């Protein structure tokens, strides 16, 4: 026990003495939280629209007016040439083309049916589907009014009215949704990157040779190496939650103690993985590259940016081995939904098993005798 304390003392001394690491540990995560929370939003404003109105009727102007009035669209240009409109889509001056063909209003009157064309730049797929959805909702709205006015129907044109409300995040605020996820990333980076690099560093500069020829036991060294970053990561989580509450005013409905309990177990998983990486590498560069490789996969599949439910089935199975996905799911449940321990039992158990496996494997791999 005393040996562990000596190792801890040494580790903290080294961490706090390192003039380049210290800001990376304490300032960079805060910046990340502040910057990413504002920028990692899915809301799309200022869609540049080019209108090709060949009809120039009252109805067509009415439809264009609806786009004009929407906060999402900025009408960039009016033209009579679809070719020209397409050109501006190609050069990137416009995001979307609205084309209203000739005889739009006539067809609408005569056959109660008319076609319009919406062309969207889909280089960014997720943005395109959103922009498209915005356009559709405006057209639907327009359609509804036409039905009411022209067909002379009175009252409610829709027999079934759909109203929707979003639970746990009523205004669909992206910051509320992103911040818990970004907190998870911060904790992960500290846990996985720094622990693995710290162990490899001893190998790289050769100090492990000297340490190995001492009575220090395997478990003592591992605890001494992992515990400092475990503590720092939890400290950072506390700081991050404080910012979430004070700066972003995010509701924390569930128990903060539970968040920390989950984080404690989660950190064991990523630190175990970090240690595993360090046993397979000889330089900090290699360790960083491998950690980064796994981290990118874990993050992209975690449900932070895209919902896990929309991934293919095989990917969802792979995701069962993604610790970040579990933690993001749980931290969102606790913070936004106020979930209790019994609500997160299953993912928490999974993390617990994962922690046991990763730490056992890493300790087993970390052999003192070469």
């Amino acid at each position, binding site marked *: 026990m005393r040996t562990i304390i*000596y190792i801890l003392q040494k580790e903290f001394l080294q961490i706090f003495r390192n003039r380049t690491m210290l800001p990376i540990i304490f300032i960079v995560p805060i910046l990340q939280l502040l910057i990413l929370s504002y920028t990692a939003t899915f809301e799309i404003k200022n869609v540049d629209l080019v209108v090709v109105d060949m009809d120039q009727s009252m109805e067509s102007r009415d439809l264009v007016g609806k786009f004009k009035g929407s906060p999402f669209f900025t009408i960039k240009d009016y033209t009579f040439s679809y070719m020209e409109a397409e050109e501006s889509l190609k050069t990137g001056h416009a995001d979307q083309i609205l084309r209203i063909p000739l005889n739009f209003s006539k067809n609408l009157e005569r056959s109660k049916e008319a076609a319009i064309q919406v062309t969207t730049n889909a280089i960014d797929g997720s943005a395109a589907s959103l922009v498209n959805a915005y356009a559709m909702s405006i057209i639907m709205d327009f359609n509804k009014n036409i039905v009411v006015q022209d067909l002379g129907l009175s009252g409610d044109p829709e027999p079934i009215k759909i109203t929707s409300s979003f639970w746990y995040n009523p205004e669909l605020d992206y910051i509320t949704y992103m911040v818990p996820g970004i907190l998870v990333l911060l904790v992960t980076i500290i846990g996985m990157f720094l622990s693995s690099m710290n162990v490899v560093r001893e190998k790289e500069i*050769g*100090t492990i*040779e*000297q340490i190995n020829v*001492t*009575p220090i036991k395997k478990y003592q060294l591992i605890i001494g190496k992992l515990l400092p970053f475990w503590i720092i990561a939890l400290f950072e989580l506390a700081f991050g939650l404080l910012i979430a509450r004070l700066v972003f005013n995010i509701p924390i409905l569930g128990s903060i103690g539970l968040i920390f309990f989950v984080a404690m177990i989660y950190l064991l998983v990523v630190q175990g993985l970090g240690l595993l990486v360090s046993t397979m590498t000889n330089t900090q560069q290699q360790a960083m590259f491998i950690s980064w490789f796994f981290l990118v996969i874990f993050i992209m599949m975690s449900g932070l940016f895209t919902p896990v439910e929309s991934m293919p089935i095989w990917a969802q199975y792979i995701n069962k081995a993604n610790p970040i996905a579990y933690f993001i799911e749980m931290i969102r449940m606790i913070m936004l939904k106020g979930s209790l321990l019994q609500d997160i039992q299953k993912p928490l158990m999974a993390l617990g098993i994962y922690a046991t496996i990763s730490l056992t494997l890493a300790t087993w791999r970390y052999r003192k005798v*070469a």
Partner: protein
Amino acid sequence: MNYPVAIKNVSKSYRKVKALSNISFEVNKGELFGIIGPDGAGKSTLFRILVTLLKPDEGEAFVEGYNVVNQFKEIRKIVGYMPGRFSLYQDLSVEENMNFFASIFKTTVKENYHLVKDIYSQIEPFKTRLAGKLSGGMKQKLALSCALIHSPTVLFLDEPTTGVDAVSRKEFWEMLQRLKQQGITILVSTPYMDEAGLCDRVALIQNGEIMEIDSPEGIIGNYTKNLYKVKTDKMFEIINDLRDYQYTDTAYRFGDSIHFTSKQENPDSDELLSYLQGKGHDNVQINEIKPDVEDCFMALM
């Protein structure tokens, strides 16, 4: 008799490269034992096996009676090891390094101060300086202090004087002599032949094989040839001229002169003199000298 270090038929290979082949020797208690050989001879591999960082492929090795493979835990408590590469924490101060290594051996600097006093007192004025900022000689003293702080019975020093200036080297060997007087068994490896004479016994090692084990005097005593030191005005051409000489056995550069041995039973230095003068060398000096360990090493190769 239980030797502090006993090695029996140890072999070790890295893939296809044979680093050590069938090494056997014993070191006596309180002995200053030198392992002398050029770079790549296998010195560090041997040390790493003895301090339990590597397992031998074949054979057995014992330190204070403990097997290096299955009793490594015991060995790690009682040996001091100074790796060839400076392996202390460069971002910790002199004092912090000392305290750390003392505490993980469950002792304190104060308790064993008498052991390291000679050495540590020289770097103590700089005890708040970071180890990475010390000069080469001071780093080496700190490394030795850290290796000694837990009062080891056997000390393994892997090339402790490589890259250290001549004065510090001399000081270092004087420190080793004093440590020896305290009864510590010391194994030291070095590529410098001139340091061999400072050991009680030396093992000459080359390409993973031990060529000879004896006291420095014994090794020199086994050298039976007449050795000549040759100097002329034209030192650049002389080596080729000597190699063309019909009686030349060996001729190699040694500092600013050439060491020469002859194939003749009773070498005739006058004949060599006239041969060299015939080749256009002036101021030829030929003196018979006593061999040192390097000459013996060259003769064994």
